[in-house]
């Protein structure tokens, strides 16, 4: 698999680390145990197109949101995490 890092260009899988589904959002401080349980433990485990967190740790250290098909491994899109390249926020 090769991932096109939005900062570095296309790179080999070995430079990246996988975390998992990027869809769940960390609950707010007052959300309660059930919401956090669902966030931490439950997964859609999509068979098809899925949005995922990947880390370009062997490269520019950006966290990326990768849209990938879990049936074919084809990657449709890669975008930076909200805080990657944040120096340009508001620019």
């Amino acid at each position, binding site marked *: 698999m090769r991932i096109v890092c939005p900062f570095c260009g296309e790179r080999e899988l*070995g430079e990246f680390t*996988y975390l998992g589904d990027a869809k769940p959002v960390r609950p707010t401080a007052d959300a309660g145990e059930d919401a956090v349980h669902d966030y931490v*433990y*439950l*997964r859609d*485990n999509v068979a098809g197109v*899925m949005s995922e967190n990947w880390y370009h740790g062997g490269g520019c250290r950006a966290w990326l949101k990768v849209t990938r098909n*879990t049936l074919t*491994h084809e990657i449709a899109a890669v975008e930076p995490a909200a805080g990657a390249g944040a120096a340009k926020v508001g620019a």
Partner: protein
Amino acid sequence: MKYSIFSLARAALSSHKNWQRTWRDATPKDRYDVVIIGGGGHGLATAWFLASEYGIKNVAVLEKGWIGSGNAGRNTTIIRSNYGLPGNTGFYELSMKLWERMEQDLNYNAMVSQRGVINLYHSDAQRDAYARRGNTMRINGIDAELLDLAAVKKMMPFLNYDNARFPVQGGLLQRRGGTARHDAVVWGYAHAASGLGVDIIQNCEVTGFVRDANGKVSGVETSRGRIGAGKVGMAVAGSSSRVANMAGLRLPIESHVLQAFVSEAIKPLIPNVMTFGAGHFYVSQSDKGGLVFGGDIDGYNSYAQRGNLPVMEDVCEGGMALMPMIGRVRLLRQWGGIMDMSMDGSPIIDKTPVEGLYLNAGWCYGGFKATPGSGFVFAHLLARDTPHEEAARFRLDRFRTGAMIDEKGQGAQPNLH
């Protein structure tokens, strides 16, 4: 027909024209007491134990392809009960005891070979962890031995003791561990279950659940029509989330690819099952002569049933680091299975929040060794509606209560288990 050397010899006289099908080719009935989704080892074992132990014979096993086409037919065939945490320890030993009588139970030679499983250690910390685990095993009545370097050298003189990056220091040995012929386990359970009246229905894919007015599951929709069921048990490994989703459930499971490899057949080289402690590599040699080996999962969610090249390299690096004598042995075939990786690395065998639907999942890459035990306790749950005592901790709500069974201590990140 009972299988034996005598029946074989008799059959030879008639040029083997009189052998019957190993299991009946069943057509779906309208309704069964229990429908098992998944014709892998676990599903078939469940059916056999339902019929043989719990007297429930009106059972169907539905398989979307051909039986054993999932992980049961694509693993590295290792059996062992060397677990360290309450919940796992007793369960896997139950399973091991069932392996030890399987062939006589089933009248099928699954080539259960208790050739020993050794986990090598390369540091004091690893030795201490294995001592802890070995003691857990011994306290639970399971055989375990902590070998020092000299004992390991004697048993496996062919490892790299000269210039290893992470020298072997010793190992945790379970002599009763070993291997079994994976396909034969599937066929053996199918053979025996079918003999007791269980219907094994291949090419029958479940496409939905039938629910009654109260929401209880009362059957399944399949590619071969609707099939009624008193209870429905899921044993579909990597497809768990997909099937559960048809009942509106989200599971604490991710599906990941695990690769396995086999080399060309060679004369006996490796006597036992070995796990490298400083990399991702484990190996045994099949009776046919191939080195059967594997390593880590590929690391990302996947349903693709094929592996990547970096992990293949990583596994071979581990192999070469451990025993550079395999450098010229050729890797013959690579394949991939879809693992139902759970959030703590341990399985889930429980009722689901949907009445009538029972779950057997989360085996990570340890499902094969659990096959008989899993079938036994899942049959118990289906028959009695209460967990078997050796599976009492494999609850679905343990993530809510915090009672995880996390052997590796990696937390809710399935690709690290």
